[in-house]
């Protein structure tokens, strides 16, 4: 187990290393740096001093190494749009609304999606199956900003039931949470249905029936357990996928979270912040895949215990 985890860790680290270089180079090729002539009327001398102060006059690889060395100590520099604090400080402040809303969205969406998927698989070709398919297709194909828009139009503009924006009282959280929840809901409805149908078609299910087990026991004890293995592996990447959606949800619902800072950092060419956010997300994605792989191996007796005659 440990050996496998270590091997995956090395592989993921290599990937992350490459990704960090890509991100770094991408940031550096953005036209119009913060101290460009067009942006700020600075003299040559001042600009040079500024560049030196931020270490921008050194060779690229030195800049990269300096940056990564800082990043390890959570020192991502100072954000241009808010020079009074550090990038780490800003992120530390902004991630709370994102996590609360996104986390609640996942917490609501995932079990609902699983239930819907299960119902669809067990009642194949009935209205609930069609409903699940419709929800899954809609949730996975309609962009989250469209969903958000429709929610606002319906509940705030026309029905006037709920506030459409802001952060603070929990009443304002409801719409963003629903918007977030659509992705896990749709993802889990689709995956659960597929995994359950796959398991239900296996010969061993017929054997379980032939043994006289009740249908409920077959579903909860056996089918669910077998289907859960692929489902668990979807969770972490999906969770982060939901986080990416925060760009839109936070922009539309005007929540002061990471997503809205990301958007504003692009608009203001705030690369310390952009760079930090990209790096953090990339490492989280890498860890999510790593965790998924290890969990998959651990849950699957075929892999955990190996052996076998063939």
């Amino acid at each position, binding site marked *: *187990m*440990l*050996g496998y985890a270590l091997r995956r860790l090395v592989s993921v680290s290599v990937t992350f290393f490459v990704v960090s270089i890509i991100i770094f180079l991408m940031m550096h090729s953005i036209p119009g740096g913060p101290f460009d002539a067009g942006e700020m009327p600075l003299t040559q001398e001042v600009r040079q001093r500024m560049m030196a102060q931020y270490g921008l006059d050194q060779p690229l690889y030195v800049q990269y190494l300096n940056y990564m060395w800082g990043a390890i100590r959570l020192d991502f520099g100072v954000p241009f749009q808010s020079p009074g604090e550090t990038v780490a400080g800003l992120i530390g402040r902004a991630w709370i609304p994102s996590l609360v809303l996104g986390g609640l969205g996942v917490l609501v969406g995932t079990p609902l999606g699983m239930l819907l998927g299960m119902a669809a698989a067990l009642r194949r070709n009935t209205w609930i199956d069609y409903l699940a398919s419709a929800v899954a297709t809609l949730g996975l194909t309609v962009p989250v900003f469209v969903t958000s828009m429709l929610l606002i139009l319906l509940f705030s503009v026309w029905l006037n039931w709920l506030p459409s924006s802001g952060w603070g009282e929990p009443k304002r959280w409801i719409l963003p949470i629903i918007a977030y929840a659509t992705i896990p809901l749709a993802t889990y409805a689709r995956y659960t249905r597929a995994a359950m149908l796959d398991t239900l078609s296996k010969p061993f299910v017929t054997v379980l029936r032939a043994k006289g087990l009740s249908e409920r026991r077959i579903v909860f004890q056996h089918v669910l357990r077998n289907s859960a293995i692929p489902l668990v592996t979807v969770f972490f990447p999906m969770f982060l996928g939901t986080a990416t959606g925060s760009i839109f949800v936070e922009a539309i619902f005007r929540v002061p979270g990471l997503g809205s800072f990301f958007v504003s950092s692009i608009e203001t060419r705030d690369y310390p912040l952009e760079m930090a956010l990209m790096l953090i997300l990339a490492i989280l994605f890498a860890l999510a895949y790593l965790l998924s792989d290890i969990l998959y191996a651990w849950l699957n007796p075929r*892999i*955990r*215990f*190996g052996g076998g005659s063939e």
Partner: protein
Amino acid sequence: MLEALVTAASKMQPALQLCGIGKTFVLKSGSVLNRRRTEVRAVRDMNLVLERNSIMGLVGESGSGKTTTGMMALRLIEPTSGQIRLEGEDITEYGHQEMKEARRRMQVVFQDSYSALSPMLTLRQIVAEPLLIHGAGGATERDALALEWLERVGLHRSFGSRYPHELSGGQRQRVAIARALILEPAVLIADEPTSALDVSVKAQIINLIQDLQNEMELSVLFISHDLSVVRSLTDRVAVMFNGRVVEEADTETIFSQARHHYTRSLLDAIPVMDPRARPRRHFMSREELEAKVVTLRASEMDGPARPSGERRLVKISKSHKVEARVAA
């Protein structure tokens, strides 16, 4: 003149010879989480001679190495040691172009007729494929020959425009046979071609192979675990056990005078087609069978004997070999 002599000489050679052939696979065993690499000797130091115009059975259970042997003869699996001789010619080290020429003379039919035919091609295209690969004839000639072969294996010409999924298992196996034989090879390697078929269809395919073998003077290596089929079809049988040949003889000799314990256990396991004679059997595990070594006295052997403590394949008559230890 010399060339003619050489050709004549090569015609005297057996159709296919496997000389001391062996295969070691490196297996990753244990779980993914704590891998061990083990070497498995699937086939070890194996000698086999397939005479011209004959059918030889290669018999054994799963894991005995019989399929690996067949695939090595075709060089679809590269042997780790030994030589493959096709009509006397050592093809073991042939490069792609030489091997392509050699492949005209040796063909294969597999067990699973479904995966043996590309679902995207019509039967005519499938049967004509060997001609296409070897650039034989124009498109119309290829088509005509393919249709001719479809008829020859017992399918109506109209099947030419059909697709594999529209056929039954037996019909698909006929197509696979037509494809294998359209280049008129000297050697056919048949890897369990009847084991997935129903009884009544099995008989059809066995008869078809026999008929074509007679007509074309083919040499067939017939790999099977089904001794009843082997008895109806082959002239000679080699029995494989744990990666090596433990007994080899003419088919009827195997059925009437088997010496090796494993051969006997195989024969004993054939269901008896008489309900009044239900035998009570005694079974031995693989380990027990491996431990039971036939011991022969020097006088029981064919030709001069040198006693040895080790077991090896020894001749006990002109055409019967068995793995045994020779006592002084």
